[in-house]
């Protein structure tokens, strides 16, 4: 490395400083692999508020959900935030997997990672067709762990055994 002028020293310095910074960030990201996630989640359908067929033929249902989860084990020193969403997942004759997002949230810190929410579905639960009567479905909690730097992790907890009514109401 040339060190004979101000410009050369500044160039050598910035290059090396950024290299060290990249190494530190890589190590920080790698350290996330040592963290063991043990999240728990439970979603209950508290009420089916209404269930109807839209004029265009699509089924729509309104639910009230009780969502409780403890995601604090996901947080490491390299975690910026965790994005979570609850999706209704079911099978229809046309599609093996339909996913409808019902609720989502951003968890900014470990202190907020253990929560309990009583809410109607934030996003509309509409089937592209008329397949929801008597339909068995799963509620799945998906999450994306967003790091300060490095690799993003995504995973989910699938909860089974939910069923929509046979009749519109």
């Amino acid at each position: 490395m040339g060190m004979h002028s101000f410009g050369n020293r500044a160039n050598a310095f910035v290059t090396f400083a950024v290299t060290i910074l990249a190494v530190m960030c890589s190590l920080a990201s790698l350290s996330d692999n040592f963290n063991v996630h043990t999240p728990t989640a439970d979603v209950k359908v508290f009420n089916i508020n209404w269930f109807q067929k839209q004029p265009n033929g699509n089924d729509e249902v309104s639910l009230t959900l009780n969502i409780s989860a403890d995601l604090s084990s996901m947080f490491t020193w390299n975690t910026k935030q965790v994005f979570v969403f609850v999706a209704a997942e079911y099978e229809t004759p046309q599609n093996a997997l339909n996913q409808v997002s019902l609720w989502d949230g951003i968890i900014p810190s470990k202190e907020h990672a253990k929560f309990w929410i009583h809410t109607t579905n934030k996003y509309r639960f509409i089937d592209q067709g008329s397949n929801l009567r008597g339909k068995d479905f799963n509620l799945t909690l998906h999450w994306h762990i967003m790091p300060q730097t490095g690799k993003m992790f995504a995973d989910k907890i699938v909860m089974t055994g939910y069923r929509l009514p046979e009749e519109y109401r």
Partner: protein
Amino acid sequence: MDWEGQKRSEIFMLISLVVFGVVAFGVGYAIGSFQIMMLIYGSGVVLTALITVPNWPFFNRHPLKWLDPSEADRHPKPQVNTAAPKKKASKQK
């Protein structure tokens, strides 16, 4: 900056940045704060830049000692009669 100063400046820069990087990562990981890691490393970078980049007087304590011009006059270069045998390096660096 003289030759010795350039060498010292470069060695100090390498060691200082590595040490600050290691300390910053160690402390940040130990107390679980990414922000503290960045603050420690950031201050290390600023400090190291202030020490190694400007041309401080302490990097100029080993000046090259050139011969006095009168010395060169007393020992003139041998006159070259044929076309460019081998050129000696000039004294300008």
